[in-house]
Every structure is written in C-alpha cells, then in structure tokens.
C-alpha cells in the first residue's frame, strides 16, 4: 500500500462524512414536508403532480395500502421497460438501428431496473437505443431509487411513531424524493461529469480513422474506429446517486466516456454511498435522536474500512502466477503495479479497490474495473460485502431498512441473553416482529444458494462460465449473490444472456427486492401500532460503542455463517491454488 493510496481512501471517507449531516438534515426537511430552498421552483410542479394523479397529500395510509401502492407502481414501471425494449426497433431515437430485445432478456432487464438491481445481461452500446436508455432505463433509475427511499421513510415513521395506524403516504414521499433530492443532485452531478468528458449527445456513433491500421480476428484490415455516443452523463449521474449501477456502456464506469478522469471517478464513487450514508442521519433526526443515526454509520464504517484495505492489499500484491521475472509489479509513482488485469491506468489499484468495496457494499453494482479479473481474495471481499445483505450503506433506502432489521435482531438477541423483554426506541419487540425479521434475514441466503446450486447441477448453468475450476464457481455464486441482493455488479466473464440465467436471475431479483420490502413494511406497521414504553434502567441503549460492536457482530455472524461453505469452494480454493 502506498501513502498516496491511503490518503486517497481517507480523503474519500472524510468528504463523505462531511456531507452526511447537511444532506441528511435537508432530506429530513423534505420528508417531514417542511420548507426548503427549492420550494419556489418545485412546489408548483409537486402540487400539479398530486392534482393530476389524484393524490391527497394530507391523507395517510396504513402499511398494506402503502405496500399496494408501491407494488402497483413498480409493476407498471416494469411493463413499460419490457415493452420499450421489445418495440425499440419501431421507435425513434435509434440511430444505430439496434433491433428489438429478446423476451427473456427484456424480462430480466425490466425486473433488474425496477428492483434497483441494474444487473445487465447485455452491452448498452450494442443492445439499447437512445430512447430505451432514456425513457425506460433512466426513468427506472429514478423510480427505483425513489421507491427504495420512500419505503425507508415509511419504515422510519413506523419506528418513530407510537399508537399509530398509518405510516404516511407512499406517493408523497416518492414524489418529494424524486423532485427535491434525486433530480437536483443528478442535474448537478451530470453537468459536472460532462465537464470532465462524459458524453451527452444524441449523435450517431462517430467514425474516426486510426493513426495505425490494425487487423480484426478474421485478418482483414481495419482502418477506422466506430466510437459509441449517446446521452450518457444524465444516466450515469442517477445510476450512481440512486445506487442503481446500470452502465450506459458495456464496461460501465471503466469506459473512458463514462468515467474519464480521476476527479469524475472520485465524485462517482462519492455518489455511490452519499445518499445511503446521509439517510442514516435522516433516520436519527426523524426518530429525534441523531445518535441512533451516527451509531449506524459507525457500525457500517467498522465493516467498510477493513474491507477496503483487505481489497487494496490483495490487489496490490497482484498475481504471482504471471511470469514473475519478466514483469515489474512493484507499485511506485510511475507504475501502478499489482494486479492490473481488468483495471484502468487512470485509476490504478487504490481507486479500483475502493470503488469495488463501495459498489458491492452499497448495492450499487457499477464497476470501474473488472471484478472477474480480481485476485481471489479481492473477489472474496466483493462477494462478502454483498453476502452481508447489502446493509453496509446498502441501496438507497433498502440498505438502511435492512440494517434496521439487523438492529431489531441484535436488540432481541441481547434481550434473550439477559432475560428481559427486548425493546427498541420505546417499542416492545415481540413474536410477530421477530418472525418478520427472521424471514427477512433468511430469504436472501436461501435464494442465492438455491439458484447457485441449481446452476451448478444443470448444463445450462455450467455452460455459461468463462473460467474453469473454482473461479467458474465464483462466477455463478457472484451472479446470484449480485441479483439476489439487488446489487447488479458481475464477474462479467459468465455469459448470462440466455433463458436460464435471465429467468432465474429475474426471479432472484424479484424475491430480493419485493419479498424483503413487504415484510419490512409489515414490521414497521406493527411497530407503529405499539404503545410507547418509556426507557427504564434495564433498557439496552442502542447508540453506545458496546451496541455498535454487538450489531457488527450480529451482521458478520449471520453473513459469514450462511456463506462460508460457498466461499470456501470458490475464492478460498482459488487463492490456495494461486499461492501454491
């Protein structure tokens, strides 16, 4: 590890923590419907949307009505994305004349973008028209992120309230999130990205003549290079901010047009965790105890920081199986060194490792380096961050409500140990809450491991892998881990654009998003109905260092126990083979 690399990592954490409070308190105002500086511009639009769609913003709904609203909204969105892909060859803004997308790929992509996963079984520049990218994919980038945050806000109200039947109004939270949080931040980030060199146009792909002609695989001379174009910056901004992660181009933020400079890389990385981290503060503010929010951020960082340094260390050591004497792997100010296969020179090792941990822990899924070519231990860290259930920052909204479920489990287990009725912020935790919480914690590993096992025993599953041996197993495990957790990043060597992976993955993504969201809403609905119990001497405080470490232990034990055998078969075996 170099001094510069360590400085870059801490600079990232420092600026992130600086931004938590201002953005967190701004979002608190937005969701508590207080005045903000954006009201003069956006207030009229907001009221117009309510009037046209028949929403009474003063009317609150219980958890079931809110769940119905969310499901209907997402289901309709899914249909729109599916249809636009199937019909894109007949629609405008298709300068490259790309054809309609196959039914199974359209299904997979529609689920993927509606569920905030943004798993991509296709290459953007070769598969999607500009219209599909904008009207289907960019829209879902916004809607799925706003859905996640709106769900979180409803769940937070469930914890903040007592003796209440309602949680708020999904439509209002979703609309305000979209207008006041996601759109303004995306506009600023998109323009900044263009200033760095991210393309934003509607031109057909450009043709340039090469300085030195080359040959293609069939041996014919190639004298020209066709360069993919499009309205990329507007989509990239929200893909990062909304923890979506679906790239405009095939290689996502490794593409020089998607992430051209170290500065664009820095802000795209910040955008991955920015809103998720700030929402912790919003949580604290809404339950009227900001210490609760900071405690969650501390717990997340306790898992995040060691992961970054493990990844950095593994990638810097590089690949000892390459011809050692002929290659200079020593990191210096002129040589990135380490494992540079699948990494870009402008980012080097430190920024690739930091990005990978950020994107896998925050359920973003965008990449600036190819995870498939990481060292076994680097790949293991990426897998592990997802196996924890995407609660270290996690997806916008969904990460924090996942973490809150772990908090409830931690409170419950602590209560069992001392033989007291567990309580959390004035709510008694009872059988119903624990049933829901256990369900929430078990569904994800069951889904991931079931589909991984299915793929490993079927020809359709096995024939898709690029690398043989333990790495091939890792590719399959990664694919379903990523989709079951709505992450969306990939060990991209695996050929997933076929009916088996498109359907199995689509189902995993549906389960990973909605089967978790609905029980969590139910849990919040139940908490909201409970009477307030004042804290007593026996109440476990949930903002102390003791509780923070307890929470981290619960998250790690659950994550590690579920997936240790699978990790041993993949990256662990591969590492042992590599150092042999």
């Amino acid at each position, binding site marked *: 590890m170099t001094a510069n690399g360590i400085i870059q990592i801490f600079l990232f954490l420092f600026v992130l923590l600086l931004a938590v409070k201002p953005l967190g308190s701004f979002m608190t105002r937005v969701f508590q419907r207080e005045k903000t500086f954006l009201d003069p511009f956006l207030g009229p639009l907001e009221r117009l949307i309510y009037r046209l769609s028949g929403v009474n913003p003063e009317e609150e709904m219980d958890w079931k*009505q809110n769940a*119905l609203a969310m499901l209907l*909204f997402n289901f309709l969105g899914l249909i729109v994305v599916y249809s636009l892909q199937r019909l894109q060859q007949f629609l405008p803004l298709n300068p490259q004349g790309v054809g309609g997308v196959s039914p199974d790929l359209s299904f997979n992509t529609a689920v993927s973008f509606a569920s905030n996963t943004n798993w991509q079984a296709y290459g953007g520049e070769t598969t999607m028209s500009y219209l599909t990218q904008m*009207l289907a994919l960019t829209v879902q980038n*916004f809607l799925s992120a706003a859905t996640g945050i709106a769900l979180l806000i409803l769940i937070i109200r469930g914890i903040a309230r007592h003796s209440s039947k309602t949680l708020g109004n999904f439509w209002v939270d979703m609309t305000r999130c979209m207008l006041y949080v996601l759109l303004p931040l995306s*506009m600023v980030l998109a323009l900044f990205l263009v200033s760095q060199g991210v393309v934003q146009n509607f031109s057909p792909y450009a043709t340039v003549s090469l300085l030195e002609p*080359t040959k293609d695989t069939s041996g014919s001379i190639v004298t020209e290079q066709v360069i993919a174009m499009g309205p990329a910056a507007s989509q990239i901004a929200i893909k990062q901010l909304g923890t979506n992660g679906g790239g405009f181009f095939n*290689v996502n933020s490794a593409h020089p*047009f998607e992430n051209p400079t170290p500065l664009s890389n820095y802000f795209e990385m910040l955008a991955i965790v920015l809103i998720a981290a700030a929402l912790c503060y919003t949580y604290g503010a809404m339950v009227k105890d900001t210490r609760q929010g900071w405690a969650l951020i501390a717990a997340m960082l306790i898992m995040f920081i060691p992961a970054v340094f493990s990844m950095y260390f593994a990638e810097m050591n590089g690949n000892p199986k390459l011809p050692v004497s002929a290659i200079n792997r020593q990191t210096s100010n002129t040589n990135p060194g380490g494992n540079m296969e699948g990494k870009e020179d402008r980012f080097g090792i430190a920024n690739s490792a930091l990005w990978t941990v950020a994107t896998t822990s925050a359920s973003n899924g965008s990449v600036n380096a190819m995870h498939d070519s990481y060292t076994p231990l680097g790949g293991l860290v990426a897998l592990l961050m997802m196996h924890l259930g995407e609660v270290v920052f996690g997806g916008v909204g969904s990460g924090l409500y996942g973490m809150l479920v772990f908090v409830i489990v931690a409170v419950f287990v602590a209560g069992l140990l001392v033989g007291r009725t567990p309580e959390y912020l004035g709510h008694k935790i009872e059988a119903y809450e624990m049933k829901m919480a256990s369900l929430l914690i078990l569904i994800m590993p069951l889904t991931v491991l079931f589909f991984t096992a299915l793929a490993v025993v079927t020809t359709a599953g096995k024939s898709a892998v690029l690398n043989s041996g333990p790495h091939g197993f890792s590719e399959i495990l990664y694919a379903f881990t990523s989709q079951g957790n709505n992450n969306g990043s990939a060990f991209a060597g695996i050929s997933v654009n076929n009916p088996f992976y498109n359907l199995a993955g689509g189902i995993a993504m549906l389960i990973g998003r909605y089967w978790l969201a609905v029980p969590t809403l139910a849990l919040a609905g139940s908490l909201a109905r409970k009477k307030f119990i004042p804290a007593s001497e026996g109440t476990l405080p949930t903002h102390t260092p003791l509780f923070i470490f307890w929470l981290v232990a619960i998250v790690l034990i659950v994550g590690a126990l579920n997936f240790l055998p699978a990790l041993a078969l993949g990256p662990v075996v591969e590492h042992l083979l590599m150092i042999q």
Partner: protein
Amino acid sequence: MFLKQLRTASITILIMSIVTGILYPVIITGLAQLLFPHKANGNFIVHQGKIIGSELIGQQFQSPKYFWSRLSATALFAYNAGASSGSNYGPLSPALQSMVSERIHNLKELDTLNDQPIPVDLVTASASGLDPHISIAAAQYQAERVALTRGMKGQQIQSLIARCTEGRTLGVLGEPRVNVLRLNYALDELQHQSIR
C-alpha cells in the same frame, strides 16, 4: 381503493417518465452542448478538419515506431470502441497466461537489448479495452525502442512524453499516466516537421 391506486400509479408513471426520461436528459444535453460542447461530443482531436481520434479512447499500435497501448479484449479487433469489454480472465486462467506471455514475447522481440522487467500495465488488458493511457513506467520502457526505430534523440522523446503526461489531479487523485494517441501523434508531427 385498488382502482384508485392503479389510476394514481399510471398517471404518476406517465408524469415521471416525461420529467426524468425526456425533460431531464434533454435539459442536460442542452446545457452540456452549451457549456462544454467539446467534452459532451467525445473529446475529439481534430487535425486539418479531420477527426483523428478521441483523447479519451485508445487505439491499437503494433509498429515499433509507435508507443504501444495496453492490451485490449474488445470484440472483433483491439480497441473496438463500439463494443467495450475487458478480458474477464480470472488470475489462474490459462488464457490469461498465454495472452500475457505472447505480449511479453512480442515486446521483447522488437527490443532485444532491453532487459528491464516490463511494467505490469503494458502486459495486461484494461477494464474497458479502450484505456487511452499507459503508465509513465510503460512509456519509459518503450522510449528507447521508439527513439532507435525513428532515429530520434532520446531527449526529444522524453520531452514529448512529459508533454503527454497527465499527473494526479490536485496532486492526490488517480495515477500519473501518459496519453498514447497524443504521444504517437506528436511523434509523427515532430518527424514530419523535421523532414520538411
């Protein structure tokens, strides 16, 4: 209740699609074209009215008189900017081994006097397959070969490398690197001028 919610959902989708799927990208495109037209349209290097490449998109070089870019795993041919891709080879992959060994062989063959170890970025494939840069070490490794092939002075080559080097942003962010297309173009230009 269900029908009312369905109506709300449909209308909200419609409005949000217009706002985020049409207005937002169109406004950003307008502002981008107004404020940063060069960047928004691909950072093209134009010479005598002809686009000769993008500063951000690498090209393939195989002749000893040019600095070579990194390996590229794009489909059909290297540096195919219509289909970005990494190799996705795992660290133990036999294909990775043969790709790297072949590259080492090709570099050594043209440069038999050079017994330095090759900087790792020059023998591995980039993530995008379009990396426009090589490390400073990778440029230095090739400098003597290029100078000898072209019959240029080492000092001339060094000053061109320095001119095409991009440092860390604010001295901290990213890694120092050399833009290969710009460097090779500058080489051709310089020799062209001296012939004239």
